[in-house]
């Protein structure tokens, strides 16, 4: 935990609402994106993150950080998601069997706080952007369209007049290169 975080936490414990707002604005988009990927439902994800921040405020005096605020918040969000999965599991209109199992497996994988912290850090995003800009031209173009612009492989293949297979190979190779260059995420 760095000095800035100690100050932020101190201010939060004093009940400083600006610090709380600041944390909310920084972490909400990340935590919400994280939760909606697991729960596959915007309003459930919103509910989960709402509860995380309510708890942060209501229990602010008692918080003890093991690693960082980010890790603390994303761990709370993960736990909240696990609770929701447990509660909703048997509702017929909830997620499909495979999606539930996948979410559970993912939650299991993300037990480690170090990897949780990585998940929402700007540092990781910046490193990825950096690596992408060094990819070979066509691979880079395809990957940017896929991830930064949110196009599907099919849309990209039509746009660039490539086969869908080629597009998918480019995306996959880009992902693999990024993984290699990032090194061990768990470390």
């Amino acid at each position, binding site marked *: 935990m760095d000095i*800035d975080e100690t100050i932020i936490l101190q201010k939060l414990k004093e009940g400083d609402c600006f610090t709380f707002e600041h944390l909310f604005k920084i972490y909400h988009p990340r935590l919400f994106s994280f939760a909606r990927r697991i729960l596959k439902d915007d309003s459930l994800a919103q509910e989960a993150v*709402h509860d995380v921040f309510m708890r942060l405020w209501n229990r602010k005096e008692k918080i003890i950080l093991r690693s960082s605020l980010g890790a603390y918040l994303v761990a709370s969000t993960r736990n909240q998601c696990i609770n929701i999965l447990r509660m909703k599991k048997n509702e017929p209109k909830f997620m499909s069997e495979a999606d539930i199992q996948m979410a559970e497996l993912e939650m299991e994988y993300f037990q480690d706080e170090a990897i949780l912290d990585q998940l929402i850090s700007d540092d990781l995003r910046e490193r990825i952007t950096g690596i992408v800009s060094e990819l070979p031209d066509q691979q880079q173009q395809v990957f940017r369209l896929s*991830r930064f612009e949110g196009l599907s492989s099919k849309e990209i293949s039509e746009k660039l007049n490539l086969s869908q297979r080629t597009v*998918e190979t480019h995306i*996959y190779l880009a992902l693999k290169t990024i993984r290699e260059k990032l090194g061990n995420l768990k470390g």
Partner: protein
Amino acid sequence: MRDIEKKILDYFEGTLDERSKLELLQVIREDDQIRELFFQLKIIWNNSEPFTDTVLAKTGESWDRISHSLKSDFEQTLKKQKIRPWMNFLKYAAVFIIGAGITFASVSLVRTFSAGKSAAENEIIVQKGQKSEVILSDGSRIWLNSETRLRYPARFELMNEREVYLEGEAYFEVAKNESKPFNVSTGNLRIRVLGTSFNVKCYPDDKLVETTLIEGKVCIQKAGHSNASCNQVILEPNQKAVFNKSDRTIIISDLKVKTDIDKKKESDLKTDLTRNTESITSWKEQILYFDNESLEEIVVKLERWYGYSITVKDPELLVHRYKGKFENYETIYQVLDAIRLTTPIHYTVSNKIVTIEKLRK
């Protein structure tokens, strides 16, 4: 690509069917290496997409909700802190606010806190119905329109670039300093400047982000695409760039200078949607200007300008277009009366709520 790799990618793209998903799950459970591969690629996949507008809109929505439920807690701390932020503000920022006057009603909150890895930041929030003006420590001058937030570092000395964050509408006169570019971030866009005057309108509720250049040169980049030359546009004086949040396109149009719009015939104006530069920047001289704007657009402007909330009961009224200029000392009643001169409407005002409807005989 191996079969399993194709499956992983399809899963990420959301095109994998239930049966293949179950097969994929099985492999992930049994094969440690594949499990590691799958989740690490998933982290990269998830962290390489920019936060979309939908996500950011949710943050705003959720903040409204949580700050509402914690309102009484917040008020307590605000009482305790009333003096401190101002002291910090004056000490570090060398900023002053013009606004003890009558029309510049004052800024609601100014605050300083140290956050993240960055140095102390200040934030100015201008409420509905108010306007303000600040001069930053580098000499740049910024006019802030109603319902606007500006966040900026207390000092620029330690930074390579000058960075400010804007929500709402502001007019910038940036002090020249070629070694330290000035950047305005709006969430969707980043505007890079060397020394210049321009207007930015980027309210979170609006579908469009409008940048109008009066003097100098600016470069506009879409957020999440820094330095990618295909994602930026350069604006020349008297041009306006309109960014559409939904399809993320930027359209540039040339603006008319004040004189030629006055020469235009009334009939031309009905179809001409291009605004002149004066209509865009006049707010900073306390002039409310409608340049052939629909009632729908005018309602939004009036709500911000006067801090009233306005309901139009008959939607067919919304398409009527109006031209007009009002000084700030003119009240909302005078504006509504002017609209009533040309359109048969009836309005009522109570408790800062205006209701407009068709005049019924």
